[in-house]
């Protein structure tokens, strides 16, 4: 994707006060032009929609069922689709407490969001009921 620095709308320079070394770290915010951003939105949306149907469309180029590509130098690349994204899902329990979990794939996230309770995020007894408030 071609990225235009001419469209920088904000440059956020964040300075951290370290114990002995003052050092600048950079986080830069920029807006793509209308066409680029529209394409980016459309591609990810198509990938998300496909993932919800159990199909795979690449998040970058929109390629259907992207496969590994081998370059001349032997490097292998693979475009990913939205099924590999990680999702955060939240639920408000009856006591008003918010419970959040991280889930891979849109389908699993949507299933969790519509399930009556989250599956237990717990594997050992010490926190067996950490999300139970009464």
């Amino acid at each position, binding site marked *: 994707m071609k990225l235009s620095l001419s469209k920088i709308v904000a440059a956020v320079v964040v300075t951290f006060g370290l114990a002995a070394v003052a050092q600048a*770290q950079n986080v830069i915010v920029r807006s793509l032009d209308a066409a680029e951003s529209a394409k980016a939105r459309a591609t990810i949306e198509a990938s998300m929609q496909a993932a919800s149907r159990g199909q795979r469309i690449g998040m970058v180029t929109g390629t259907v069922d992207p496969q590994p590509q081998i370059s001349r130098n032997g490097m292998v690349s693979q475009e990913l689709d939205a099924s590999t994204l*990680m999702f955060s899902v939240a639920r408000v329990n009856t006591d008003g407490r918010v419970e959040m979990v991280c889930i891979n794939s849109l389908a699993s996230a949507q299933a969790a969001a519509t399930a009556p309770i989250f599956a237990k995020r717990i*594997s050992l007894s010490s926190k067996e009921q950490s999300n139970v*408030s009464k």
Partner: protein
Amino acid sequence: MSASKRFTLKALASASVIGCALGIAGQAQAAATIIINNINQPGVGFNDTTPAVPVGGNTGTTLGQQRLIAFTYAATIWSATLTSSVPIIVNAQFTPLTCSATTGVLGSAGATQIFADFAGAQRPNTWYAYALANKLAGTNVATSPSPQISSNFNSNLGTPGCLETSGWYYGLDGQEGTRIDFVAVLQHELGHGLGFQTFTNGSTGAFNNGRPSIWDHFLLSAAANKNWVEATAAERAASAISVNGLIWTGPAVTAAVPSVLRFGQAAVTISGVAAGAGAGTYVAGDSSFGPAVLGPSISGQLMPVAEQGAGTGSGCLPFNAANTLAVTGRVALVDRGTCGFAVKAKNAQNAGAIGVIIANNAAGLLAPGGGDPSVTIPVLGITQAQGNTIKAALLTRSRSRSGVIASFGVFGTQYTGADLFGRAQMFAPNPFQGGSSVSHFDSAMFRNQLMEPAINSDLTQSVLPPQDLSFRLFQDIGW
């Protein structure tokens, strides 16, 4: 969440210049530039001009500004920690996502491409997330460069019909209260996008297109005693549901475990002249509120709390004179039921108790959940059977003395969330939980970790020891 647990915001000179004081000694050489591509249309998402009141150190005066400042703040924490000569580009947007009044998808993030056998790859025939591959190569490895991470968050959160009562909190101070801390959620999801993820199918054990991920060199199937790269697909799948048999063997994480995780589990030791058969040490469940029990803690006479009327629940009402006399300066023993754990703890605290034990009213260990930041005394949960044993020793008590001493501390020879060899455990519940399994630290870890599957309210924003193991895992895989 206590502000003292959070990094201190040092200065907010403007909406685009933030100064922070971070205790990240040892990371002074870290340097990575993160570029956030705002791909929202005018007027929506990051460009939403709806007026907003500055909150929690976020000086934005529109919804869009606040989103961008919070996003920048979370990205800054990773930027200050990671090292890469290649800018990390993140496509970011806010759009409507699946939601209802009580549940909703908050957002998502992930790598857009993966690479193997590029110049600088530390392991052959192994998948790396895009941003990490760039870092190792010292250049953008893609023949068709793109943003390395795609992210998308729910723009409807907090609006009618979409988790209205608990929308996003865009403050930078972790004081989210009953709302959802955007910074914490984004920190976590960006972590996955940066490479906190295996691309091997944990459910089937199948490698992605026949190649292992860099994670698979460090994931150990304890039962097979093989790293995932050496194990069979069946062995990998079995370890993914082994509960406590999926281990991270990376040296950076292992070295940091002693400084991050608690050695031993929370426990209550019962002693005293009247303890009788109740004497002993009981492994207890940590509560999600009140001070954590990290070592020897409070100790005092244990007194039960009586119901103040049939069906009112033990500890659910402000304590009457008899219960107050019983627990003042002592440890209160209440039964689970009728009201929230935090309510019981707060009532006991108000009556002068120095600690609270909550006995389960059903089978199983109890780790009291819920929250009340005003609870300042430690609270632990025990099983119903343990509660009955201890109560039997309390039958001979007077109104203000029991002769039974309860001492809070830790017990055991294992770090909480690590195996016997001190290696971190990864999340491997049975049955397999799509997406949550494998690519997170185990939820048993104590203290809670940023990259556990549940985003806990006591996180500190730090990704470094002694608070957090996330960056150490990144170091293991090449960051």
